[in-house]
């Protein structure tokens, strides 16, 4: 992948999926990871407790129709932030096994 922001991480400015230890999926534009956690902009959230759609269907819909922003800025605490994957490359761990 081409890095467009010298001095930043490769994912800076890229829309990613962050898998939360809570079971939530966080989709947003990656800014950075600090000791406080992962910073995302323009974020949509999948929480299986409140969203009936499966994670896979939800991601598929976001890929096709775009991201309906629920939070303009999110700082995910380090204990919540798990695997980080580009939205275009995300596969559920269950599907990839």
């Amino acid at each position: 992948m081409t890095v467009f922001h010298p001095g930043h991480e490769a994912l800076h400015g890229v829309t990613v999926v962050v898998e939360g230890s809570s079971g939530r999926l966080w989709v947003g534009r990656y800014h950075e990871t600090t000791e406080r956690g992962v910073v995302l902009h323009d974020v949509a959230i999948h929480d299986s407790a409140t969203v009936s759609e499966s994670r896979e269907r939800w991601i598929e819909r976001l890929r096709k129709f775009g991201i309906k922003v629920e939070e303009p800025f999110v700082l995910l605490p380090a204990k919540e932030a798990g695997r980080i994957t580009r939205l275009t490359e995300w596969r559920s761990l269950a599907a990839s096994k």
Partner: protein
Amino acid sequence: MYNEMMVKPMREEVSRLGVRELRSVAEVDAALGPGEGTVLVFVNSVCGCAAGAARPALSLALRHPVRPQQLLTVFAGQDLDAAARARSYFADYQPSSPSIALLRDGEVVHFVHRHMIEGRGPEAIAADLTAAFDRYCPKQEVA
């Protein structure tokens, strides 16, 4: 909004490709209202990373012999009313910029979101666009 002096080269990078810039609601409605034929709408943006790849990608794609009949652009974050009105013609798709919509007879047949542009080179983005042109635009159509 950004200073127009800064934005001008970004506008010109697109308009010199033969893409008509729409800066008012009336211009958007006149161009998109009829809903006929194949139309590409490039939603331009100041974003250095994504738009910096999207504009060259558009340039490469428009060298393809098969192209949409109308080539249009609006500038997100600058011409707010025109951009919002253009987006109303593809309202099922969440706004992002830059982005590219391809419409045929008023229906969206292909959409390139910002997340499909980020981190990719112009050649890869252009290849996706020209594949869509081949699929949806009749070969004799040249803008």
